[in-house]
C-alpha cells in the first residue's frame, strides 16, 4: 500500500505478554483435545488474565472493521482482497470469530506477526465495545435488520450504540445510505462517506429511528416525514456502475460471488479500501477475484449431485437468496437451526416468502425442520422432512444439481461435515 506509513512497533505490557502466551498454550491444548482450532478458547484465557489486552494488542495496527446484520463475511473478504491488491499484508478474522475473543485471537496469532493491516469482521453489538481500542479505524456499516431478536432486542438499540461510540471516538466511516437505521447510527461520526447501494428490505425501518415518525420512500430515496433525517448523498451504485457524488463512473463492480446484494457489498468495500489507500479501480478488480467466502457460494459434489452452498441468516438474507434462485428448478435442501447464534425463535420463517420455492422438490432439514415444514405446509409447498445430516441427504439425490439453503449454524455444520474449512 503505497501511501501507508510503516506500522509503529507494537509494545505490550508484561501482563499482556504473559496472558497471550498462556492463551496460546490453552489453544494448543484445546487443539490437541480435538476441540477445533482452539484460538478463541486461548483468547478467552488471555482476556481473563488481562482484560485490557485488546487496547494494547490494537496499538500500531491500521484497521478496517466491517459490521452490520448481513454481508459481514463477504464484505470483509472483499475488503481484504482489495487491501492485498493494494500491496498490504492483511490479517483478517474468520467468520464466527467476530466477537472480542475472536479479534484478540487474531491479533495474538502467528499469522498476524507479519501483517501490517487488519481487516476485522465485527459483530454488530461487539463493534461499539471494541472500537475505542483502535486508532482512527475505517468503519464499514452495512445494514441493520431483524436477526436474533432474543439476543439483540430491538434493532434500533444497536443503531443507538453505534451512534454513541461514533460520537465519542474518531473513525473514518463508510456507510450504506439506503438503510435509515445505518444513516442514523452513523449520524454522530465526524468523518463519514455514504454509499447508496439500494435496499430491498425496509420492514425494520418504517418508523424513524430518530423521532418515531414515519419514513416515506420512493425507489431511490427516503426521508422522515417529521424530522430532518433523510437519505444522504455520496457514492451511488446503479447496476454495476459505481458513481462518485459528482456523477462520474469510478468503477464497474463484478464481484466473483453472485447476487445483487453482493454488488452493494462490493461498493462499500472498494470505497472503504480507498480510505485505506487503495485506488478504487484496484479494489474493483480485487472483488472480482473473490469467488467463495468460508464455503459460501461454493459448489461441492456429493454422491451424484453437485450442490451449490447458500447461506441466509435472517429474513433479509433469505429474501436475497430466494430472489437469486427463483428461476431454478433443481431440488432445494433447506436446513434451519435455532441455536443461540441463529436466534432461538424461528418465527422469522413467516417473514420469508418460501412460496417462491413452489414447483421445486423441497427437503426440510436441520434441527428445526418441523418448524420449516409447517411454514411450507401453509405456503402450500410440499416437502419431505429429513432428520439426518445434510451430507447423508445429499448422497441420496438422483438429480445432478442441488441447492442447499441453510441458516447460520446449519451452514456451519455442513461446512464442517464437508471439511471445507
Amino acid at each position, binding site marked *: 500500500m503505497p501511501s501507508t506509513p510503516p506500522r509503529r512497533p507494537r509494545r505490550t505490557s508484561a501482563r499482556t505478554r504473559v496472558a497471550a502466551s498462556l492463551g496460546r498454550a490453552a489453544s494448543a491444548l484445546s487443539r490437541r483435545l480435538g476441540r477445533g482450532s482452539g484460538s478463541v478458547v486461548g483468547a478467552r484465557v488471555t482476556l481473563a488474565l488481562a482484560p485490557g489486552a485488546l487496547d494494547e494488542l490494537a496499538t500500531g495496527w491500521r484497521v478496517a472493521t466491517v459490521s452490520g446484520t448481513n454481508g459481514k463475511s463477504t464484505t470483509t473478504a472483499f475488503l481484504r482482497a482489495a487491501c492485498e491488491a493494494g500491496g498490504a499484508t492483511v490479517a483478517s478474522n474468520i467468520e464466527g470469530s467476530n466477537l472480542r475473543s475472536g479479534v484478540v485471537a487474531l491479533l495474538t496469532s502467528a499469522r498476524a506477526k507479519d501483517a501490517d493491516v487488519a481487516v476485522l469482521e465485527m459483530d454488530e453489538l461487539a463493534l461499539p465495545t471494541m472500537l475505542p481500542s483502535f486508532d482512527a479505524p475505517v468503519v464499514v456499516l452495512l445494514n441493520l435488520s*431483524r436477526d436474533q*431478536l*432474543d439476543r439483540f*432486542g*430491538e*434493532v*434500533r438499540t444497536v443503531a443507538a450504540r453505534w451512534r454513541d461510540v461514533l460520537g465519542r471516538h474518531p473513525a473514518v466511516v463508510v456507510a450504506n445510505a439506503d438503510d435509515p437505521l445505518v444513516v442514523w447510527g452513523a449520524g454522530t461520526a465526524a468523518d463519514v462517506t455514504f454509499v447508496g447501494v439500494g435496499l430491498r428490505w425496509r*420492514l425494520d425501518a*418504517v*418508523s*424513524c429511528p430518530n423521532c*418515531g*415518525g*414515519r419514513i416515506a420512500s420512493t425507489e431511490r430515496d427516503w426521508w422522515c416525514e417529521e424530522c430532518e433525517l433523510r437519505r444522504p448523498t455520496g457514492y451511488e451504485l446503479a447496476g454495476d456502475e459505481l458513481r462518485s457524488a459528482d456523477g462520474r463512473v469510478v468503477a464497474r463492480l463484478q464481484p466473483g460471488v453472485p447476487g445483487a446484494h453482493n454488488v452493494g457489498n462490493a461498493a462499500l468495500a472498494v470505497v472503504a479500501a480507498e480510505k485505506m489507500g487503495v485506488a478504487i479501480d484496484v479494489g474493483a478488480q480485487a472483488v472480482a477475484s473473490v469467488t467463495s467466502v468460508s464455503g459460501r457460494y461454493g459448489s461441492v459434489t456429493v454422491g451424484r449431485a453437485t450442490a451449490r452452498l447458500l447461506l441466509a441468516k435472517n429474513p433479509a438474507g433469505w429474501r436475497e437468496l430466494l430472489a437469486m434462485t427463483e428461476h431454478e428448478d433443481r431440488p432445494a435442501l433447506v436446513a434451519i437451526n435455532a441455536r443461540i447464534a441463529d436466534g*432461538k*425463535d424461528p*418465527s*422469522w*420463517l*413467516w*417473514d420469508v416468502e418460501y412460496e417462491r420455492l413452489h414447483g421445486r422438490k423441497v427437503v426440510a432439514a436441520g434441527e428445526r425442520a*418441523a*418448524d420449516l*415444514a*409447517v*411454514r411450507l*405446509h*401453509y405456503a*402450500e409447498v410440499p416437502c419431505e*422432512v429429513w432428520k439426518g445430516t445434510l451430507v447423508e441427504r445429499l448422497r441420496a439425490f438422483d438429480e445432478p444439481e442441488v441447492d442447499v439453503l441453510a441458516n447460520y449454524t446449519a451452514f456451519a455444520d455442513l461446512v464442517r461435515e464437508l471439511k471445507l474449512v
Partner: protein
Amino acid sequence: MTEPVGIALVFPELLGTYGDGGNALVLQRRLQWRGIEARVIAVGVDDPVPSSCDVYVLGGGEDAPQTLATERLTAHGFDQAVARGAVVFGVCAGFQILGRSFTGADGTQQPGLGVLDCTTRPKGTRMIGELVVEATALQLPLLTGFENHGGITELGADATPFGRVLVGSGNGAAGVEGVVTGRVMGTYLHGPALARNPALADLLLSWVVGPLEPLDDHVVDRLREERLHAALGRRHRG
C-alpha cells in the same frame, strides 16, 4: 354466494416484528382448505383501517412503532369494528395496544385502545423463551409459543386469562397468560401463535363461520409434539 371472510392484517410494517403476519395466512388457509373463501387485507400505515372485516390480526412490534400504531388505530375508529363484534387477535405489542394503557418508548404511560381490561408496565428485563399455557378458559389443548417481551400485563376485573402458565412468564403477573373478552384476544405467544396452535385458530374462525370440519394437521402435530417436549421435558405425556 356469500362474501369471502375478510382478514385484516393491521399495519404489518409496524406490527410485524416476529413473523406474526403468519397468523393471517394460517386463518386464510384453514378456511380455504375447507372450501370457504377468505382474503387477507394488509392494512398499510397510511390506509384507512377497513371497518367491515371479520377478523383483525395485530402482531408484535418495537416501542416507537407501537405508539404510532395506537395513534393511527384510534384516529381510524378501530373501536367501531370491535363494537360490531369483529374477532380481534393481538400478539405482544398488538396485545398491549388493546389494553387500557402501556408504557411508550419515552417511558411515559400511554393510553391503549381500551378494548381489553388490562394495563402493561415495563418489567425492566425481557422475558424470552418457550411459553406453554394451559388454556382452561378457552377449553383448548396446551398452547405453545415463544415469548419475547419486556412488559408485565395486569388484568382488571373484566378480563379473563387463557389459563395458567406451565413454562415461561406469559403476562408476567399472577402466573397466567393472555386475555379473552368476548371475541377479542390478546397473547404473548409468538410462533406464530396460530401456526403452532391450530385449535386456537379454529376457535377464532368458528366465531365467524360456525362449527368447522377437522383438517389433517399431522404436519403441525409433529411440531407441537417437538416443542412441547422441548419445553416440558418428561412432564409432557402425549
